[in-house]
């Protein structure tokens, strides 16, 4: 097949799919309906995305995903059919050919006390100290276990066992690790439970850059709520053992206590991690998404306090944390307020935070919403973020403005300013329109330049590449 023929075939497939989505949209101006056959029910979601990305090696990018779920009495099954020539994590790389795959496929039996899943599933044991295989939408990461999961719950006892192979959304072979795990918890007094958790990970035989070999992580936990009516708590202690005797045994300790009464909420947290990275664990982090906590050598203590006035609706909060990472000591402080529904029209929030430990960050967030009428509103937001990554200091300033007519349409414009020594481009402008049709369809058309950069959330960090071009997306829910 010549290059020209190849290109024509690819274009015809793309055009066919886009045409299909448009025809579908035109044919269904009202509510989208799913299918029911006797006791068998279906639920379906379709997502189509087309990018014209001028920064990609090949500019036309396509992503089509159709998710179907079906249930019959205690049985259910689901899968997602996907066709794409780029991955959302790396939009500057377009694949040579369109690739089709079936992912998030599962079959499940669900009775009152027992749930058995075969196929793709997410899993988190305890609070993530021993195993955490989850999607992370903020950093565009999708990971599942392909295998089996049995969950039994009866009265005071909760048991779970699982096993399978790690699957990365990009299908990279080095992520195909063998994994097994389990946990058991027992409610020894009403509202108070103790638990035991374990995971086994084996990356031997896979193309891993840093082969840690077989490792076993196990932990014990204690959790409870309504202690003296207003206190809840959680504590977990874990040990990480490697089969390789040259790798040191690690440990992790996480504990928190929450007190909530009337207008006041207080939250105290302590954590200590030493050589505790099993590559598949993700213990709790603070609630500022910028925080990145190393599992190799970190000690942290944090206090968060919140006071709420209910009439008018004002929330004030303050957080102070002290951390030691790789022997370097520093603080993480933030505070702010949130005023909602002033005269039923105005919402205003402002917060400022400083983190001066290993990756220092200063961040100011401001947000204002004014509702002119019940449906028309204007939203403005500003973010000023300065951070250091190794030798480089970055300054990022974002402004955005959105005018909405709820729940049908919103128009937005955004200006991003970036100053660093790596790239020349400083100003990025983008805008778009979102339309929601009454039958469960959402259409978005946007374009311009969008700054890339580091995004950290849920203990994971990801560098988002910049974008320049046009995006079209269509989301449909059939019910």
């Amino acid at each position, binding site marked *: *097949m010549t290059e020209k023929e190849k290109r024509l075939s690819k274009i015809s497939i793309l055009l066919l799919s886009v045409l299909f989505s448009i025809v579908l949209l035109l044919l269904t101006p009202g509510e*989208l*309906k*799913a*299918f*029911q*056959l006797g006791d068998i*029910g279906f*639920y379906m*979601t379709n*997502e189509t995305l087309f990018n014209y990305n001028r920064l990609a090696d090949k500019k036309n990018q396509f992503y089509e*995903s*159709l998710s179907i779920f079906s249930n019959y009495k205690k049985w*259910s099954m*689901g899968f*997602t*059919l996907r*066709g794409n020539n780029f991955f959302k994590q790396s939009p500057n790389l377009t694949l040579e*050919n369109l690739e*089709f795959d079936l992912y*998030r496929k599962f079959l499940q039996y*669900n009775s*009152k006390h027992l749930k058995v899943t075969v196929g793709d599933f*997410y*899993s*988190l044991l305890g*609070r*993530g100290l021993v195993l955490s295989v*989850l*999607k992370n939408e*903020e950093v565009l990461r999708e990971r599942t276990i392909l295998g089996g999961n049995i969950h039994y719950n009866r009265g005071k006892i909760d048991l779970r066992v699982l096993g399978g192979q790690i699957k990365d959304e990009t299908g990279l072979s080095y992520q195909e690790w063998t994994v097994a795990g389990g946990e058991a918890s027992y*409610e020894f007094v009403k*509202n108070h439970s103790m638990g035991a958790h374990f995971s086994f990970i084996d990356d031997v035989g896979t193309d891993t850059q840093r082969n840690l070999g077989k490792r076993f992580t196990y932990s014990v936990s204690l959790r409870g*709520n309504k202690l003296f009516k207003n206190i809840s708590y*959680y504590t977990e202690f874990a040990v990480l053992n490697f089969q390789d005797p040259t790798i040191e045994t690690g440990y992790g300790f996480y504990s928190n206590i929450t007190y*909530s009464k009337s207008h006041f*909420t207080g*939250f105290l947290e302590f954590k200590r991690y030493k050589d505790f990275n099993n590559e598949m664990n993700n*213990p*709790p982090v603070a*609630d500022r998404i910028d925080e990145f906590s190393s599992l190799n050598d970190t000690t942290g203590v944090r206090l968060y306090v*919140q006071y*709420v006035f209910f009439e008018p609706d004002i*929330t004030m909060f303050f957080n102070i944390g002290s951390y030691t990472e790789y022997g370097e000591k520093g603080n993480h402080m933030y505070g702010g307020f949130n005023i*909602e529904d002033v005269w039923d029209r105005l919402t205003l929030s402002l917060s400022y935070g400083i983190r001066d430990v290993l990756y220092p960050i200063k961040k100011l967030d401001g*947000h204002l919403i004014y509702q002119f009428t*019940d*449906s028309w*509103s204007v939203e403005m937001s500003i973010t000023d973020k300065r951070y250091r990554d190794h030798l480089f200091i970055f300054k990022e300033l974002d402004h955005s403005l959105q005018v*909405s007519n*709820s*729940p049908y349409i919103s128009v937005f414009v955004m200006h991003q300013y970036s100053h660093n020594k790596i790239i020349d481009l400083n100003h990025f402008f983008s805008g778009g329109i*979102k339309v*929601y049709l009454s039958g469960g369809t*959402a259409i978005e058309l946007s374009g311009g330049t969008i700054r890339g950069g580091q995004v950290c*959330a*849920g*203990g994971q960090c990801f560098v988002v590449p910049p974008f320049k071009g046009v995006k079209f997306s269509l*989301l449909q829910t059939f*019910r």
Partner: protein
Amino acid sequence: MECWSVEKLEEISKMKKSLILIIVLVWLMALFFIYGELVPDFSLKKMDGSAFKLSDYLGKKIIVIDFWATWCKPCKKLLKKLNEIHLDYKDKVEVITISTDDASAFSKIESYIKGKRYSFMVLLDPDSSVSRIFNPSEQLPFTLIIDKKGNIAYTHTGYMPGYEKELIKKIEKLSHD
């Protein structure tokens, strides 16, 4: 007569597979136009640790389900409005919110809900077992309304100020049907 190389035949085979998949996809989509509605049942744990099963609540009241996360700002704005709906329509509507945060955020969920004195039901879906069925695109917030017959009567992704009025309109309409 032209002789095709192995590479070319493989290429054609790949293209054929792609086209077959698209045809199957189109066929499936067409199939789904047939009229009908049914809500899939599910079970999750509540924030206090007790068990929840959707079918136990079906047919009694109109159910509003909202998927949210602690890191999602528009979700928090919608939660405030949902609490107002929960208080104003207690007899007619069951408001159920489902947090899609992972278990490491349980303490944040609890302190946020308690701190704001929200009284609607909060369910935890740390491994997205329910979220991936109803909201596979994972855009938040995602709201759906289930009528008294157990049918999904409305779905919506996102939050704009004033959206709660649309929700109330739908609830009023469904309660009179």
